[in-house]
């Protein structure tokens, strides 16, 4: 990838990131933070990539540790966000 292409992706993502959360209500600050937290667990993809290409024992050990940590971040993050949001459900349904 050229540096220009990467810069373009980066800058556009910044604006999308600003835009998507610009209207969030106070009520949802916590779940939104938690959801964003889960999304950066996508570093798991990077951890798997480096683990698959690790050559030395040191590299493998560190990469596997990264896979464990990233999985906890991602899976735990989505589950805990879902649990928070579960509390909001059915508000329209039952009165």
């Amino acid at each position: 990838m050229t540096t220009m292409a990467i810069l373009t992706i980066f800058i556009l993502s910044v604006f999308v990131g600003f835009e998507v959360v610009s209207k969030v209500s106070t009520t949802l600050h916590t779940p939104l933070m938690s959801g964003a937290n889960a999304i950066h667990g996508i570093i798991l993809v990077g951890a798997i990539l480096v683990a698959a290409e690790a050559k030395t024992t040191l590299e493998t050990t560190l990469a596997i540790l990264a896979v464990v940590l990233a999985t906890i971040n991602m899976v735990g993050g989505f589950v805990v966000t879902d649990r928070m949001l579960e509390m909001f459900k059915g508000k329209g349904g039952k009165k």
Partner: protein
Amino acid sequence: MNSNLYALLGLGVAVSFIMALKGLSAPKTARRGNLIGAFGATVATVIVFFDPAIEEGHNTLLIIGAIAFGVIVGVPAARKIQMTQMPQLVALFNGVGGGAAALVAIVEYLNLSAEGKPSTANLIATVFTVIVGSTSFSGSVITFLKLQELMTTRPVVFPGGRFVIAATLVGVLASGGWTISSGGNTPLLVMGILALLFGVLFVLPVGGADVPIVISLLNAFTGLTVAASGYVLQSTLLIVAGTLVGASGTILTRKMAEAMGRSLFGTLFGAFTAKPQAQAVGGEVRPVKSGSPDDVAILLNYAQRVVIVPGFGLAVAQAQHTVRELADLLAERGVEVAYGIHPVAGRMPGHMNVLLAEASVPYEQLVEMEEINPTFPQTDVVLVVGANDVVNPAAKTTPGCPIYGMPILDVAGAGNVIFLKRSMRPGFAGIENDLLYDAKTTLLFGDAKDSLTKVVSALKAL
């Protein structure tokens, strides 16, 4: 896998994350948004094994085992956690994410260094990821310890602390420069250790109500480290996802800071400007008026309008269902009931909304601070359930106290104020509340749930 197909699937995942964040900003779509994000993340995790960039994959079984282990640790932790402890769990998840990003950068650095000195651009991205990832990791761990009350929740400030912090930061940056200019493992190791230390020092002086802001800020930081790793690994998906979190996290942090009347700058650089504070004058015993559950029930029963102000104590006591029972009982007797929700009541913004929603409190009864404040003079009784800092007039009257400048619920304007408290211990921010000694205040000591249950039965007997 065909590289175009792989790129296309990666793009789909990136879009799912945008939809997830968008969904999470509106109550109706929030849960669906989260599920879309989780689905996208799952797809990304599966397809990465078929990434055409991997020439000969090693360790596949080991990786799958590590993922399984992560799931076994992460899911039960997220499932079993009490609602009250959710903030620190989010902090911890954020920390391990930052740690993972730093590790990924280190491994890639070792890998690239084996083939000669990596390019300067890669070195800069690596240095950035390791510094910010390590800071986020150790900072989040300290936040966790503070919220879990395994250490003091007050700001920890020691004499000359800001010079130590500034010196550490200079050390981090210098070792970063050293890594970029010379490569090699020693500079990176020194830098990583200094960055871990900096994370600890950065969060220690943060106290009380500022902790949630710091969690949110570290969350945004971790997002940016993921983006930087994406640059080194040439992964568009990581760049997009990381940047999204970094950008939305920054906005969110600013919104939280605004909701609390804090300047983001002040929170950010609090570590550099914090001075040891004179501790509140203790020892002086002032009289308070404490009442029985019957007194409280009578006050409530003959009120026209009651506002309930929930705080962290409600969460600790798991009293949300009992408080709702009380509210329903009062409403049956013709009392107008509303809940006054401070944006940062509890330990995270929106904490109370989540909790009361669990007890199916009607959404219309939850009134935000700006709307409820003008109505306090027309309110007969305010029932403060386990809240303290968010109603503490010191935020208005005592310049220099840790919560000075934070908007509060002006409950002092109401006819009567009832505090349900466990003890006279000050709140999370560690500041005395003068309102407790006011003539219109009645205190009912005890666990919030026990007290509320007693009040409910006293009310039924009336």
